Structure formats: C-alpha cells, structure tokens
C-alpha cells in the first residue's frame, strides 16, 4: 500500500508538469486550430532561462558582452545570476520562475508574430509545417547557443523528505512543484473564465470571424494566448528542472509530445481536460514503471505508453474525455 501511494504521488507530480504544458497546447489549438509543435521547445527554453537566471551567463561571457562583472549589482547579476552559488531559497526560486515565464511569454509572442501570423492565411498544413520548422529551429538553435551536452540545474530549493501517513515519502521539492502547478492552473482558470481578456479568448476560440465582427482585436488575443501558454510552459520547464536537475536542448521533444497527447486525451481545446489528461498520463506512466514488470511490461516501455493511450482514445473517443462533439460546418 505504501509503495502504491508513493507511485501515485510521483505520478501526480509528473502529471502536474504534463498538465502545465498541455494547457499551452490546448489554448493555442483552441484559438488557432494549430498544433504548436514548438511548444515543447518553449518549455526547454524556460528551463534554460531558469538555469541562466540562477547561475548567470558566467564571468567571461559577461565580459564578452562588455559587462563588467565587478561593477555593482547589475554586472554581478548578469555574470553570477540570482543564486550565484549561494544558499538555495524559495523566494529566489519563485523569482527565477516568474522571470523565465516573462521571457518565454515574450518568446511565444515573437514566434507567433514572426512565424505563425504570416502563414495564417494559408492552409492549416502550412501552419503545421511552420510549427515544425520553429520547433527544429529552437532545438538546434538551443544546441548551438546553450551547448548540446546536458547541464546540471542548480539546486534552487534544499531537498528535504516529508513523511506521509501510510509510509509514503514526498520531497519538499515535489510538494512545491505540485502546489505551484495547482496555483498556476487555478490562475489560468480565473483568467480564462473571469476576465474580459479570457472572454475574448473564448470568443476567438469559438469563432474567429464572428469575434472579429464583434470588435475583438483577434490578433492581440491570439498573441496573448501564445504569451499565456508559453509562460505556463516556462514554469513547467523550471519546475521540471527543480525535480530532475539535468537539462538539455532536446528535453522538450518527448515531454512536449506527451503533453500534446495529454491535451488530446482530455479533449483538445478544453482547459480542465488538459489538466485531467496530463494527470492521467503522468500516473499511467509511473504505474507502468512501478508495476508493469508484474504483467510483463518492461519499464523501458514508459515512453510508448502515452502514444498507445493516444491511439486507443482516438479509436474509441476521438473528441477526448471531456471534449464535445463539434458538427462540421460547410
């Protein structure tokens, strides 16, 4: 029982990360009907931004940019970062996460403006190929800029074990990741359902042309949707790096694909669905690793689980668990 509880907690923790990324997929799909392949890579950029915010870009790189590391607060911040080898603290971790979110929100808006908006008038296939192009650009640009080898992520929060009733153990990192993820999801729910911008987003997602006729600045709303989604992905990036402190420029591919599957599983375009899908995939994956061997499934199959689920869901319930059937209009 204790191990089961442990697996469940691990699964939920992993699932909350998938859920955060899946939200971005589902929101962009909702407004543009576009699978934003680059989303998983924005997640990667988020993790790297966290890395550089914590560590700085290094003294030599800073000097290369003409910044004197010795000259007061700013220079030291650029070259040594917020943590700079100092004591880990929750405040720093939160600050790093928020800044990474801000940077990635801008990145998301930039991607939308430069790559997706010019192809919006063409077919959806064109947009999809463009998204693959952006994804490849971020992956390979990342390898060039950040270096291809994995980097150790600095410890932002000192690890401590918390004993739970039933024999399970949860680390304080896992707990913080889970709490932050839940707060972000609730915040998103608030933005989408309780604010005017959110109402506009839902209108654009319902029908872009009508929304435009109602006086909604659809370009701005689409841009904001990308910003929100990318910010969530960046948060997920930093949170993943806190849990598993190894980051590399290709880390977003598989996680991104699985998160997309989570979005489809929950019903693409549906926000609570994305959270549910993410949790289900996270839990299933952990359970396969934990218990698969008893039914003859090797833990190495964990990366196939999400896709098997995807194919099953598309056969039996193509609209996803919480999606509604949309009649195709001619």
């Amino acid at each position, binding site marked *: 029982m204790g191990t089961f509880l442990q697996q469940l907690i691990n699964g939920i923790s992993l699932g909350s990360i998938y859920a955060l990324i899946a939200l971005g997929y589902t929101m962009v799909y909702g407004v543009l*009907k576009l*699978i934003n392949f680059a989303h998983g890579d924005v997640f990667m950029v988020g993790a790297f931004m966290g890395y550089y915010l914590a560590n700085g870009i290094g003294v030599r790189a800073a000097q290369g940019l003409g910044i004197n590391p010795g000259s007061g607060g700013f220079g030291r911040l650029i070259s040594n970062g917020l943590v700079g080898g100092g004591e880990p603290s929750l405040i720093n971790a939160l600050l790093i996460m928020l800044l990474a979110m801000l940077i990635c929100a801008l990145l998301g808006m930039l991607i939308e403006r430069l*790559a997706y908006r*010019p*192809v919006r008038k*063409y*077919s*959806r*296939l*064109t947009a*999809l*190929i*463009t998204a*693959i*192009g*952006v*994804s*490849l*650009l971020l*992956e*390979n*640009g990342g390898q*060039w800029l950040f270096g291809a080898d994995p980097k150790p992520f600095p410890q932002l929060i000192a690890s401590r074990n918390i004993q739970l009733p039933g024999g399970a153990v949860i680390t304080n990192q896992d707990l913080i990741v889970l709490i932050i993820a839940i707060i972000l999801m609730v915040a998103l729910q608030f933005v989408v359902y309780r604010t005017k911008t959110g109402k506009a987003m839902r209108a654009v997602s319902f029908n872009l042309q009508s929304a435009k006729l109602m006086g909604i600045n659809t370009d701005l709303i689409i841009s904001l949707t990308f910003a929100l989604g990318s910010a969530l992905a960046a948060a997920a990036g930093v949170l993943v790096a806190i849990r598993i402190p190894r980051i590399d420029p290709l880390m977003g*591919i598989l996680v991104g*694909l699985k998160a*997309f*599957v989570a979005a*489809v599983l929950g019903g693409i375009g549906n926000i609570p669905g994305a959270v549910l899908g993410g949790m289900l995939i996270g839990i299933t994956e952990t359970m396969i690793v934990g218990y698969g061997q008893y039914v003859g499934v*090797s833990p*190495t*199959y964990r*990366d*196939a689980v*999400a*896709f*098997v689920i*995807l*194919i099953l869901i*598309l*056969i039996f319930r*193509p609209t996803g668990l919480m999606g509604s059937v949309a009649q*195709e209009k*001619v």
Partner: protein
Amino acid sequence: MSRTARNLLLTVVVIALLYGVDYLFANGIGGFGISPFHRRIIMLSGIAITLAVSLNLIIGYTGQFSLGHAGFMAVGAYAGAYFTVNYGERLAQGLGGATVGWVIVLGLATLIGALAAAIAGLVVGVPSLRLKGDYLAIVTLGFAQIIVVLINNIDAVGGARGFSGIPIVKSFFWIYLVAVATIVIVHNITNSAFGRALISIREDELAAEAMGVNTTRYKVMAFVISSAMAGAAGVLFAHFDGYLNPKSFEFLKSVEILIMVILGGLGSIVGSILGAVALTILPEALRGLAEYRMIIYSLLLIILMIMRPQGLLGGLNPFKGWRARRQAKTRTEAEEITAEDTRGPISVDKEGTGTHR
C-alpha cells in the same frame, strides 16, 4: 504497338539500362571508376527519392499529414534485414552462388519489407484515417515513436544496441529499380480515377464524400501503398550499411523526409525527386557548416512556408508539357461553343434578369 506491349518493352528497357549502369558502377567505365564517396551519395539519393515520392502521395496528393514515414521505413528495414540475416546466406547459395544469389535475395527481402510495412500501414491507417484534421499527424508520429520503443526492446534484432551483421549488398540496380517503380506507380496513380479521388479528398473532403468518393477507403489505400514503398526503401537502406540503429528512425528522420517533399513542392513528383537529391547532397556540401546545418534547414523551412507555401515546384508539373495544356485549351473552347448552341441566345426580361429561352 499495343499499350501492353509498349509498357512491357519500356519495362525491359529500363531494367536493362539499370543493370547496365549497375555493371558500370561496379566495374568503372574504361578505367575511370566512380569514387566510393560519389557512389554512396548516388545510392543514398535513390533511397531518399523513394521515401520522398512515396510520402508525397499521402501529403501532396491526398492532403493527409503523416509524420511517421520513418516508422514505416523502420518496419521494412528490420523485417527485411531479419529475413536476410536468418535465411539470406542459405538462399543465396541455393540460388546460384554469391553475387547473383544475393541480388535475388535482396529483391525478396525488399518484397518482404514492403509487405511488412504495408501491414503496419493498414493497422495504423484504418483507425486514424477515419478521423479528419490533424489527428493523423499525431497518430503517425506516435506510431513511429512506438515502433522505435518496440525495436529497442526486441532482442532478436539487437534492441537498443542496434542490428549489426546485416549482409551488405550495395545494389544500384535494386535501389534505382525501386525508385523508378515508385515514381511510375505514383505518377500513374495520380493520373487515374483513383488519383483523382485522392486529389478530390485533398481539395475538399466533405465535397468528395458528397460526390460518392469513399474517402476512408481511398485514404487507407494511398496510405498502405505509400507505407509499402517506405518499407522497401528501408530494406535497401538496411543492406546499404549493414547496420541499423533504432535511433536513426526517430522523429527527426520523418521530418527530414517531410522537408524533402515540401522543399520540392507538394503534389510534384519532380519536386520530390529534386528535394530528395538536394537534401542528400546538401549535408555533404555543408560539411564545414555541420553545426549550423539543422539551423539552416529549419530557417529555410519557415521562410519557404511564408514565401511559397506550396514548395518550390508545387503546382507545377513539367511532365505535362505544352501538349496537355493545348489539349485543355481546345477542350474548353469546344465546350463553350456547344454550351452556347444548346442553350441558345440569352434574352433579358423587363426586370433585367437574364434567362435562356
């Protein structure tokens, strides 16, 4: 000469030609051999052509977005390689010794690989092609991912270590026979009733269905044919280097084939061929820029989509020369005349609405 006889003669000529070039390839021309480096590029181009043209059948002509072409290639490659590793030696001996025997065995392996990939295509296609929209892209992508994970876990084909010890048969003849066959088949399909059904699906699936096209059936058929071709290319690839690694069939390989098709132009066979050759030569030409190769590719892809989304040769068909265009022109003129004749001159009533008398 009857049609069948002409086609038969053409086939014989093509095979003889390929065999001749194959011979020159292996033995050199009057003392001037082709360097192994160039030979390698020429053969890899042939495999790439098969992959790109077959993917074009699904994406360019049927309008279905598949992101798992490398997965079908992997199925074919491993099935074919498994066959030659386990039965090849004995069969080759039985079929008249080393060289000739191996050529026949490779042909058999290619058939087996194509068949295996076709079955995989059927299994993937039937459930996913019923759905509209982008789901096929995701399912094929997921399928390719599952294939790689499966291969990683099958010990009989080496698992994650890779499949080594595959007999190396660098056969120009088979590589280009498969490439030519792929080109001819795709060209003929697109000029047949089947092909017009596929194009109608691409243009408007709902309208095609309303016109009585069994869209799912046609999509699955195109998908299976294309998968089989990818499988055949996979077998040839397996026997080219004698080593297979599951890693080489991951998402990036599918994307590479996709870029070949898109660069050349959706729905253009010549475009796919040029794209395949270009993307095989480019990495060699850009050797000095190896670090930036993928960055250049991805930028190219984005810029191409913004400037010319149909690809460089998309919508153009150099096979259809002036003759076809002139025929089309005379046909429209003739239609206009008959239309006027049957309907008679137009009379305009008081309200100004024109009606035929």
